């Protein structure tokens, strides 16, 4: 899974969000490293929707502008949990080899 995809799913794990909310949240989660742009974001959302990892939660009109909120589906939650577990397992091994004496804190 690409990092951007992982971060988008993570942003939605906290509750449904609209496009711009996802962008600001992903920026925050990644400590400012990942700044998604509109075209990239919707290419990813479109694919995640086709794979049924996310779905449309609701739509709102704010200041004449459409806000479509997305949320994780149960398969999406599972996929994110699996991916997070995989990343953690890798990180634990890396940390323990870098610092064999102390366990990972």
């Amino acid at each position, binding site marked *: 899974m690409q990092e951007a995809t992982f971060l988008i799913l993570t942003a939605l794990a906290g509750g449904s969000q*609209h*496009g*711009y909310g996802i*962008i600001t949240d992903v920026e925050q989660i990644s400590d400012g490293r990942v700044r998604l*742009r*509109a*075209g*990239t*974001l*919707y*290419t990813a959302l*479109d694919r995640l929707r086709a794979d049924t990892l996310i779905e449309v939660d609701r739509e709102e009109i704010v200041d004449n*502008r*459409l*806000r*479509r909120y997305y949320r994780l589906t149960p398969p999406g939650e599972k996929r994110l949990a699996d991916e997070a577990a995989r990343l953690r397992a890798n990180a634990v091994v890396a940390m323990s080899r870098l610092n064999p004496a102390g366990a990972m804190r």
Partner: protein
Amino acid sequence: MTGADGLERRYRRLLRLFPAEYRREHEQEILSVLMAGAAEGRRRPGLADSADLVMSALFIRWREMTRQPRWKWERRHWRLIVRLRVAIGIWLLVVGALVLGAGYWWGVVMALPAALHFYFAYRLRHAVQS
């Protein structure tokens, strides 16, 4: 006209690069995101945002072009079509090599359509068998 109107108009022009179906589905919300992310008083789309839209539009069009076989007959006669595409691809490569051998550099250009034929043959075979 205010700066925001001009900016929105320019973004809309860029969004026309996307396929119509994709625009019906996403144009309004993409526009919302672009306008929400635009700095106050901005009149023109930034270079990075524009490049991102152009690349995304190309990617979406490429994805739609290479998706599942769209016609029944393509599915029914897939073996024939795959063989035909491979044959055309090889023929293009041979012609390209002959042109190249005759001393004309532009023979290499033949590799591109050949590669596309190989790719579509591969996609069709993959789609039918999966």
